[in-house]
């Protein structure tokens, strides 16, 4: 297995199948937290950390606990619990070890529990990197890379959107389109631009 596969996964999750703009995962926070650049990018960094780690943990649970005992139907409940407890755990650790970091990321961490992007990537990993109940070649590494790529794509979309929205403050927008509707319309245009990546030959 050569290295290019992982680059392909990253490019594909960041640009082609961007988690927000083409899979619609993590849309709620995308609309909610993208008003300013600094919080938006901080949220993105927190999400990237959690998606990467959650991909690793849920893969291990799925492969070594759920599959051997034929408990695949407990996937939803176990994954969401893992994500929730991991987020909680990270919050406690950061709060104790680095109050400075906590001030930047802390408030976003609870939001991440119900962030579709995190749970979505764990489900996607098991859908895509398991074939008929068996992991495909290098399944774990691919899952982690996809987790990271999902977070990176999320951060990129957040960064771009927050930049636009900061400028939008000064624009004259019809009253009924203010805030949420205009964000969606801009997201639509961004998504259209990202469509240019599809069919991208790697």
């Amino acid at each position, binding site marked *: 297995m050569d290295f290019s596969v992982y680059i392909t996964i990253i490019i594909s999750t960041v640009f082609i199948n961007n988690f927000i*703009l*083409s*899979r*619609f*995962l*993590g*849309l*709620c926070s995308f*609309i909610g937290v993208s008003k300013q650049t600094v919080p938006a990018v901080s949220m993105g960094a927190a999400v990237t950390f959690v998606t990467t780690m959650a991909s690793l943990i849920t893969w291990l649970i799925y492969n070594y606990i759920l599959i051997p005992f034929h408990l695949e*139907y*407990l*996937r*939803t*409940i176990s994954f*969401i*619990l893992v994500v*929730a*407890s991991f987020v909680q755990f990270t919050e406690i650790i950061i709060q104790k070890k680095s109050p400075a970091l906590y001030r930047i990321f802390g408030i976003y961490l609870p939001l991440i*529990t*119900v*962030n*579709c992007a*995190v*749970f*979505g990537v764990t*489900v*996607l990993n098991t*859908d895509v990197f398991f074939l008929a109940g068996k992991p495909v070649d290098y399944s774990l590494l691919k899952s982690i890379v996809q987790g990271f790529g999902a977070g990176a794509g999320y951060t990129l979309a957040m960064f771009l959107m927050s930049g636009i929205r900061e400028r939008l403050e000064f624009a004259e927008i*019809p*009253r*009924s*389109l203010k805030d*949420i*509707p*205009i*964000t*969606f*319309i801009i*997201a*639509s*245009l961004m*998504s*259209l631009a*990202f*469509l240019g990546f599809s069919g991208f030959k790697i």
Partner: protein
Amino acid sequence: MKMLGEFVKGVWRENPTFRLALGLCPTLAVSTSVINGIGMGVAATFVLVGSNIFVSIIRSKIPNKVRIPCFIVVIATFVTIADLFMKAYTPALSRSLGMFVPLIVVNCMVLGRAEAFSSKYPPLRSIFDALGMGLGFTWALILISAIREVLGNGTIMGVLINKNFQPPLFMILAPGALLTIGLLIGLINYITSRR
């Protein structure tokens, strides 16, 4: 009368999709055809009603600090039940909704209602609230998916509308979904502000 009020508010005044902007990921992702929209709406309503009743029943017995994990477990249970039943009885629909059925668990609408409503009110009121929210979510989904299916695929419920109409692919892809919901929320804002 009070019950009816709880029911009606979810359908229009506090419509989860258009007014509260909750649960948007599945709304946009599965709204490529009306059938998908109905399927997702019904599944989410089932989860909403089931988990709201349950949360409302156990609300006094759960310590406040662990209530969120408890709610999540309850919701995840109902989601898995819905998922299994859909796989068994509507396999084609279950396949076309794919990962978005398990994703109902992170639908902010469901957890939001558990936290904001059914953890505070008795079961009967919670049922009406959940039904109203579910219906509001479903009609929003049907509207969005109808617009996208007609414009993007030239069909409605899988039936061809006009042979000569060349549908713009754009509407069935991601940008079309975002544009549709943006304009719809804008339109609804406009209607409500005029009244």
